[in-house]
């Protein structure tokens, strides 16, 4: 009897080890998965998304807004005239991004910094939303009479971008925004305007999506002749490009222009067709070591 116990005692642990599923042993990891690609581009449409460009990557953005569709056939539904914005965005690291742009509308220069404060994660650490903060400055350089001082032509933007990727296909973002204009065009307007943007995207296929964005300005701050900005876009992404084909009621593309100074109304057909094209470049040092 004792001998049997002895033999069993020696064999059992060995055989039980062999049967242990190795797959289970490698599976008890505490991996944290950062949700990526909440939006395809650094803009939902006009407004910023939570996305930044990655470290040592640069995006070149070419954006056009054509004139109003309701101008009819003679103006070829607005296509005869356009404003553009050329922008460069550079990732200092995977969270911090700097950008600048120049719009033909009011000959505006804009500069901004954007920082990913919180990233949505799943796995062993779960964070429900991504939060990105943005600070921006813009200055008009178009000649006016009377000529305004540089300070009077300046405006500032601060935004909290809060987004959640609910599923592979659906993401939603809230963007509480503060815009300060040193001098408003209509002097009864508040200089500091509080607004909130809401934007979302719905993926149609792996490479295309429908986006919508609405910027709501809280009441009693700006003139009644201004409207809230509403935009829809269709995004197509190919290798290194993202194309956004869009309709919006705003001509300008900086925060001051499209949030506080949109004069077009969807109801009267003041709709601008436009597009954003972003092209991505990487400056990461090439790794010479070949596998």
């Amino acid at each position: 009897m004792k001998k049997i116990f002895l033999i069993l005692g020696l064999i059992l642990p060995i055989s039980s080890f062999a049967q242990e599923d190795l797959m289970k042993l490698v599976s008890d990891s505490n991996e944290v998965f950062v949700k990526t690609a909440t939006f395809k581009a650094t803009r939902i449409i006009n407004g910023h998304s939570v996305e930044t460009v990655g470290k040592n990557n640069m995006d070149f953005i070419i954006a056009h807004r054509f004139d109003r569709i309701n101008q009819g056939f003679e103006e070829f539904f607005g296509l005869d005239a356009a404003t553009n914005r050329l922008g460069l965005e550079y990732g200092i690291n995977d969270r911090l991004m700097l950008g600048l742009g120049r719009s033909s509308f009011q000959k505006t220069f804009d500069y901004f910094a954007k920082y990913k404060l919180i990233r949505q994660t799943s796995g062993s650490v779960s964070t429900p939303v991504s939060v990105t903060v943005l600070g921006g400055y813009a200055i008009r350089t178009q000649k006016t009479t009377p000529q305004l001082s540089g300070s009077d032509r300046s405006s500032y933007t601060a935004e909290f971008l809060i987004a959640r990727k609910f599923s592979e296909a659906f993401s939603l973002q809230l963007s509480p925004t503060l815009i300060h204009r040193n001098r408003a065009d209509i002097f009864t307007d508040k200089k500091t305007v509080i607004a909130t943007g809401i934007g979302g995207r719905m993926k149609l296929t792996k490479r295309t999506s429908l986006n919508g964005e609405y910027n709501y300005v809280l009441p009693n701050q700006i003139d009644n002749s201004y409207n809230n900005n509403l935009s829809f876009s269709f995004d197509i992404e190919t290798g290194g490009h993202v194309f956004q084909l869009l309709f919006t009621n705003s001509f300008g593309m900086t925060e001051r222009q499209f949030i506080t100074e949109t004069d077009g109304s969807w109801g009267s057909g003041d709709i601008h067709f436009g597009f954003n094209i972003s092209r991505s470049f990487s400056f990461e040092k090439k790794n010479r070591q070949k596998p």
Partner: protein
Amino acid sequence: MKHYLIVPVLILIFNCASAQNKLYSVSKSEFSFFSKTPLEDIKAKNTRANSIINLSNQELVIRIPVSQFQFSNKLMQQHFNENYMESEKYPYATFKGKIIEDLDLSKPGIYSVNASGTLNIHGVDQDRKLSGKLTVGENSLVLETKFDVLLVDHKIDIPKLVFKKIAEKIEVSANIYYTPYVK
């Protein structure tokens, strides 16, 4: 009476001994893949793979979190995860197999090994035989391997629009360093 003492002591010794020289787990790993295309080379690195080798029955498993592949071009990385690997749906690539040679891996040395088993990428199983070099040290193992993955084998679609940028075959190479497994 003495037997009652000897039995548990022997069991203990055997258990410890078997645990010590059988299972090895990852201390450091580096997976990289490389794909040459006319326009640009696509490269990425992953240092987050987990793996265990059981030297006594020569079984091994490898598990790679797909989204941890780091590309220098972040847009490419996004496309890799979103469009090709669908890494939210299929977060891991795994290999489960067995070294087929009859070797005494308890002796230090450098062995050429072939492992046959199942490679799962993008949720699709493929029976594969992967070859590599296993360096057995005093208390460590190093496994080096190189193999090709055909995208079509794992139902990874290449959209026609960007066809020229993506190779249909990807070279994967790995260096995995092991130390004895501790629970």
